């Protein structure tokens, strides 16, 4: 049958590794099943009751057997654990300098924005052969970004950023699903991932309605919201300067040290009093409920760009 697939497309650098591990486990499973089923069926036939008053000889157990079926599965299990952990590490650590793309989930659609400013809904265009990292958040409930052909998936949480990375190895169209149940139209929260040759991706990005880039949009809002009245580019403002801070540690008024990342920036905008930088007053207004998740991502990109140009 033509439409009777058994394996999904293998379209990312990690996919074959997951499949290889899966195949290995399948082999182990088949061996164990044959062993157990074989034992049960053969014994049941060979030692079937031949007369009603048959009384088999009793045994109580056998320590060697017990130890072997404790220790062998234990070592096999630990071996599989290590293999799985190894693949997991690679799934979690993106290579340096990936192409950054941003996704916001809401009931029941995916809103995607590329750094150039290009937006799309329920479709994700990516180039082939280049690591892509998605930074994701949700406007309402928990969603989950799932691309079976790439063997990647991660929950998309409200109030927090999560990331996911992949490198596509095949051009074409692939399924995108929301995998975490999110309400009525959960099964409609689906889309397409379109993998293009890098040149085609570039053309697509530059295509119609590009408008301002994410950094530009972030900078515009930074000014409109009045952030820059306090956060000046030199350390003279009433708030700390935001130049060169991204990915660096900062000391808080309680002596704690935290690293500035998108989650920290997001929290500092929405709930400024949660963490106060040492040497500053808790005077920043609370922006909770006034800025959309997309704008937050844009402002974070802008703040991040202040660190890139400062280097």
């Amino acid at each position, binding site marked *: 049958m033509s439409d*009777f697939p058994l394996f999904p497309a293998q379209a990312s650098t990690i996919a074959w590794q997951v499949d290889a591990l899966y195949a290995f486990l399948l082999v182990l499973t088949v061996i164990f099943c044959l062993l157990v089923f074989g034992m049960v069926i053969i014994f*049941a036939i060979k030692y079937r009751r031949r007369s009603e008053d048959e009384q088999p000889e009793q045994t109580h157990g056998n320590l060697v057997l017990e130890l072997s079926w404790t220790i062998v599965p234990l070592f096999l299990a630990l071996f*599989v654990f290590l293999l799985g952990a190894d693949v997991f590490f690679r799934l979690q650590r993106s290579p340096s300098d990936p192409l950054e793309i941003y996704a916001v989930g809401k009931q029941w659609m995916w809103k995607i924005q590329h750094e150039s400013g290009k937006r799309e809904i329920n479709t994700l265009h990516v180039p082939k052969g280049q690591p892509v990292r998605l930074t994701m958040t949700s406007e309402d409930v928990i969603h989950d970004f799932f691309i079976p052909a790439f063997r990647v998936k991660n929950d998309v949480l*409200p109030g927090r950023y999560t990331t996911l990375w992949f490198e596509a190895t095949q051009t074409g169209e692939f399924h995108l699903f929301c*995998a975490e149940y999110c309400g009525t139209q959960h099964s409609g929260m689906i889309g397409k991932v379109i993998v293009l040759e890098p040149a085609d991706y570039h053309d697509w990005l530059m295509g119609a309605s590009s408008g301002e880039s994410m950094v530009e949009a972030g900078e515009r809002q930074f000014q409109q919201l009045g952030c820059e009245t306090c956060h000046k580019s030199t350390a003279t403002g009433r708030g700390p300067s935001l130049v060169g801070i991204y990915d660096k540690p900062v000391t808080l008024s309680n002596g704690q040290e935290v690293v500035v990342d998108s989650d920290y920036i997001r929290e500092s905008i929405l709930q400024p009093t949660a963490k106060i930088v040492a040497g500053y007053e808790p005077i920043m207004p609370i922006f909770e409920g006034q800025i959309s998740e997309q704008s937050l991502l844009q402002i974070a990109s802008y703040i991040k760009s202040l660190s890139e140009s400062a280097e």
Partner: protein
Amino acid sequence: MSHAVSANGEPRNYLNETYGIKSWLLTLDHKRIGILYLITLAVFFLVGSMFASLIRFELMTPKGDLVEAETYNKLFTMHGVVMIFFFLIPSIPAVLGNFLIPLQIGARDVAFPRLNLLSYYLYVAGGAFAVLAIIMGGIDTGWTFYTPYSSTYSTSFVSLALVGVFVNGFSSILTGVNFMVTIHKMRAPGMTWFRLPLFIWGHYATSLIQVLGTPVVAITLLLVCFERAFKIGIFDPNYGGDPVLFQHMFWFYSHPAVYIMILPGFAVISDVIACFSRKRVFGYSFVAFSSLAIAVLGFLVWGHHLFVSGQSTYASMVFSFITFFIAVPTAIKIFNWSFTLHKASVKLDSPMLYVMGFIGLFTIGGLTGLFLSTLGIDVHLHDTYFVVAHFHYVMVGGMVMGFLCGLHFWWPKMTGRMYSEGAAKLGVMFVFAGFNLTFFPQFILGYLGMPRRYHAYPEEWQALNIMSTAGATVLGLGFSLTIVYLLWSLFKGEKAPANPFQAKGLEWDIPSPPIAHNFEAIPIVTWEAYPYGEEESTEPSTEAVPERAKEDEVV
């Protein structure tokens, strides 16, 4: 043995001791309470099965055309809630455990008969809330009630259903307490811990989880109700809560709860396999302690449900590591059961066919659990049909098969009637074949990437879904057949002898059905569990009384 005779000339037993609806509804007899549970559970099972059939019929076509998306979501939620909380968790413990624990340890009842009746009514009350929630319009959060969807966004009857599960939780806790005290304090003279049938060990481990785990989920669900009512900000980030906190608290109970839904199955299998192979269970103490190991380790692995939830990489590694450990006691059990058949005298009566089905399906279920514990693979498989197939293999293939196994084995004891063995063999074949046809294709669908809880799906997956629906039909036929011939036996079945399967164990030394107070004289136990092949040893003896006294001091 009983010489008393009831009004119509039959020997007195717990069924004809007293008559009338009140004598049942207010009974303190553990055996009658077991029967009450059986009847109520059966109703929930039928309701849950109806939801399941509607789900499967919807999925025959890729488009969502049979019911609306909202209805579909309510169907799978109510299927899960009813089946897990109101059928599977109570199934074996509340029916067979209640009926058999006192009989097997040589006691006249459980430690707290009134508490036992209260447990039953808490279960009924919890069930009533759930049924009310269903009738008023249903609930659509999934049986896992993930926040903030359940706490803020869902407009269905979430709180009502949660209160139902909450109240039902107390039934489970009280049953656990009752069983633990009973097993500690009520054993007949000479019935030392290592002379107990493994049925008792399995229930002891289960009770431990029920007592320690259930309070946590009860509080968690109550917090969701509070957040819905008062917006207090525990789980919803809009009010300063943490959405993932719920998952930690929920799975802290619900992972151990999956063992509440299998250890009693193990308990039944051990007893039945010994009987139909006429042998002691191979490696008795390994099987006994592996239940306890599973119960304890089960509390340390909840994070394997959160590998893609944003949980830290290292936490995931630890949870995965411990999960692999738990596979070992599971393997120990499977091998010991299989080896019990070595040089045995195996008879393939219907309860034994259920044992074989159980071993096959549970082995597959357990091994696929290892795929899900493997970090790199679970990222792909989480929240797909692979998980659905996995837990149906363990819960239906394992526990429901185990329940049916035990029901067939002890049916003559409980009802005093024999069912038709031919029909029973046919039933088990239907259930086994139907089950595999339903759920095996779901492993493939899951690896292909079909997410669970989807009302509509891409066309290329239709063939596998049709197979699954066809399987569900066969499975349904199997269950219906079983219900029919069991009911039939109540009226037309032959009278059951005291010990139709030549099994060993105190419950088989008394008439079927037992008398109201179980034993004319409390037996004195001088033999090991499963004394198959030792004809003389089951004769009651008078020596071992001091053992009991010693035991009492240490417990």
